[in-house]
C-alpha cells in the first residue's frame, strides 16, 4: 500500500457531493499536487486528510495506519493554511515553537530546532518579530516553518502561494520545491494554478466536480491528457471532431474532417477507443506547424511574445480559430500542418 492512500472517499455538504469517491495514492517523499478549478472540492479533500472534516465514506491511511476517527491533533499531518493562520499574539519564534512545546524537548533543543527551521525558511534573526509586523511572504514562511518543524509524515498545503503577488509567488515556488527536497517530507499541495502544479510537482491529480480526472506526472498530463477537461485545463489546446475508421496493433486511423484521413500512433490514443467511435483530436498550439502546403487560413489575432508569437488562425469551414504558437509568418495568410505524431485522440464524451 502506498504511503498516503485515499480510497473511495466521499463527502457531501447538505446533499451536494463535494468529494465523490476519490482514490489517490501518494508515495513517500513525493511532491503531490491537487489541481482543479475553484469549488471542485480540493480543500475539502485536504481537510479530510488533515482531520478537520470527516468523510461520509471511504478510508484514508497514512503509513499504513487508518485515520478514520483520529482527531487532527493526533494525526501525523501538518497543514499550511491558505490564510496562514499565524497566531497574532505570539512572535515568530513562538509561532514556530507552538507545536513543539508539548513534546518534552529541553529548552535548548527547542531553541536549536526553531533556529534551524528559521534558517531553512530564510527568516534568520526574525524570531523576535511580532506576527503583525511580517510581510505576506514572511507570513507564508512562518506558516511553513511552523508546520515543518513538527516533522510531519505528510505536509498539507492549501493554496499556500495564492495570496502572494506574481513575482514573489514564482520565487516562493522555487524555494518551496527546494525545501521539500531538503526535508524529504511528503507534500500534498492544493492549487488552482496549473503552472504552479506543473512546475512544482512530481505528480498531479486533476480534480473537477469532486472527482479525480487524471493522476499523472506533469509531462504526461501535458502530453497525454486522458479527457477533454484535463486537456482544456492544462494549457491551451485545439480540438477537432473525428471518427475512428480503423484500429490496428500500432496505429489508429481516423477521419478528421478538415484534417483529412490521419493515422495516429496507438500511444496517442486514449484507451478503450474502437472503430466507429466519435473522438476528439487534440493538438497543442506549439505543435501546429507552418508549412507551404497545408490547411490555409488567415491570422486573426497575434500576440508577440519575444522569440515566438502566439496567434489565432481562422480557417474556412471552422468557427473556432486555431491557436498556434511559433514564428509568425509575414502577411495575413498562412497554411498550417498537423503532424500526426503530435495529435492525440480523446473520447468525445466526458
Amino acid at each position, binding site marked *: 500500500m502506498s504511503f498516503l492512500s485515499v480510497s473511495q472517499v466521499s463527502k457531501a455538504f447538505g446533499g451536494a457531493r463535494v468529494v465523490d469517491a476519490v482514490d489517490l495514492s501518494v508515495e513517500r517523499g513525493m511532491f503531490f499536487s491537487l489541481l482543479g478549478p475553484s469549488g471542485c472540492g480540493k480543500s475539502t479533500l485536504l481537510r479530510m486528510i488533515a482531520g478537520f472534516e470527516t468523510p461520509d465514506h471511504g478510508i484514508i491511511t497514512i503509513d499504513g495506519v487508518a485515520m478514520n476517527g483520529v482527531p487532527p491533533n493526533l494525526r501525523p499531518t501538518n497543514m499550511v493554511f491558505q490564510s496562514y493562520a499565524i497566531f497574532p499574539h*505570539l512572535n515568530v519564534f513562538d509561532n514556530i515553537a507552538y507545536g513543539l512545546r508539548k513534546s518534552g524537548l529541553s529548552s535548548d533543543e527547542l531553541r536549536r530546532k526553531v533556529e534551524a527551521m528559521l534558517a531553512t525558511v530564510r527568516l534568520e534573526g526574525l524570531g523576535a518579530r511580532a506576527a503583525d509586523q511580517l510581510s505576506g511572504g514572511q507570513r507564508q514562511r512562518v506558516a511553513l516553518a511552523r508546520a515543518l518543524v513538527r516533522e510531519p509524515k505528510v505536509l498539507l498545503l492549501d493554496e499556500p502561494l495564492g495570496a502572494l503577488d506574481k513575482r514573489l509567488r514564482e520565487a516562493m515556488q522555487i524555494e518551496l520545491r527546494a525545501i521539500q527536497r531538503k526535508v524529504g517530507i511528503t507534500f500534498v499541495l492544493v492549487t488552482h494554478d496549473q503552472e504552479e502544479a506543473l512546475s512544482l510537482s512530481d505528480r498531479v491529480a486533476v480534480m473537477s466536480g469532486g472527482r479525480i480526472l487524471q493522476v499523472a506526472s506533469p509531462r504526461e498530463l501535458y502530453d497525454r491528457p486522458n479527457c477533454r477537461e484535463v486537456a482544456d485545463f492544462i494549457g491551451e489546446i485545439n480540438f477537432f471532431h473525428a471518427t475512428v475508421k480503423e484500429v490496428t496493433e500500432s496505429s489508429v486511423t481516423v477521419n478528421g474532417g478538415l484534417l483529412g484521413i490521419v493515422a495516429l500512433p496507438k500511444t496517442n490514443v486514449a484507451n478503450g477507443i474502437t472503430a466507429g467511435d466519435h473522438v476528439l483530436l487534440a493538438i497543442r498550439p506549439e505543435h501546429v506547424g507552418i508549412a507551404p502546403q497545408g490547411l490555409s487560413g488567415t491570422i486573426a489575432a497575434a500576440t508577440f511574445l519575444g522569440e515566438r508569437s502566439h496567434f489565432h488562425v481562422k480557417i474556412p469551414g471552422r468557427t473556432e480559430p486555431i491557436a498556434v504558437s511559433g514564428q509568425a509568418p509575414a502577411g495575413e495568410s498562412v497554411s498550417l500542418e498537423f503532424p500526426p505524431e503530435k495529435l492525440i485522440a480523446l473520447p468525445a464524451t466526458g
Partner: protein
Amino acid sequence: MRERGGVADKGRNVRQGYALLAPTLVVVGLTLAAPLGLLLITSLKSQSGIGFEAGWTLAQYSEVLGRGSYRILFARSVVVAALVTALTVALAYPMAYFVAFHARRKFLWLILLTIPFWTSYLLRVFAWKIILGYGGVINSGLLGLGLIAEPLGSLLYNPFAVVVTLAHAWAAFAILPIYVSLEKIDRSLLEAGSDLGDSKLRRFLRITLPLSMPGVIGAAILIFVPTTGDFVTPELVGGPAGAMIANIIETQFTQVGNWPLGAALALVSMTMVAVLAGLFVAAARAAARAVR
C-alpha cells in the same frame, strides 16, 4: 523644502484632529473635568455650618486615611467589587463562548440574553430582594419542599446578597464585550492549534483565552469600576453589614452635610479604583502574554 511641507502638513493634521475632537472636549470638560475640579477644591476645605471655612486644609484626607471604619468600608468595597467582577465574568464567559462558537442564531441569542437588561436596574435589584427575602421565593420554595423548617434569615442584607444581585445586574455588560472578542477570533487559528497537536482544552488555554483577553479586561473594568462606586444595591439588599464606601459618601453629602469629607472620600476611592484597575489590566495582559 520637502521637510517644511511635511511640518506644515503635520500642523494641519493636528489642527484637524482638534477640530474633530472639539465637541467631545467641550462635553468632557463640562461634565467631567469641571466637576472633578470642584470635587478637588471641596475636599481641601472644611465644613462650617452650611458653608465652608476660609483657607485650605488636608484635614479631610487625614480623616479619610486615618479612620479604621473607613478602611473597612474601602476594603469591603474592593472585595465585593472583585467578587462581583470575578463571578460575572466567570458566568458570562461560557455564555458568550456558546453564542460565539456554537449558537446558530447568534443575534437571537444575544437579544434573549440581554432582554433582562431592558428593564430598570432598580427593578432588577428589587427582584432580587423578593427572591432572597425572608418571605421570598427561595425561602418559600425550600419551606414548601420541606427542606427547611424555618425561613433562612441569612440570604438578604449581607455582602453575599450584594454580590449575587450585582453579578446578575452586570451580566449583559460582561457578555457583550467577551462575545465580541471571541467572535473576532479567526477560526482557522483554532484549526491551526489542533493541527499543531493541541487538545481542545490546550487550544482553548493557548489561543482562545489569550485572544479573548481584551474582552475579558473590558468586561472586568466595566463591572469593577461602577461596582466599587455603587450605593443603591448595598442600600437595598446589603444591610448594615453590606454597606460599601459609596454609601458613606452619599451619607456625607445628603444626611451629615459634610461635603468636604464626602469629596475627599470620593477622590480617595476614585484613585484607589484607578490604581487597582491599572494593576489588574497590567496583570491580565502579562498573564495573556506569558502563554506560549
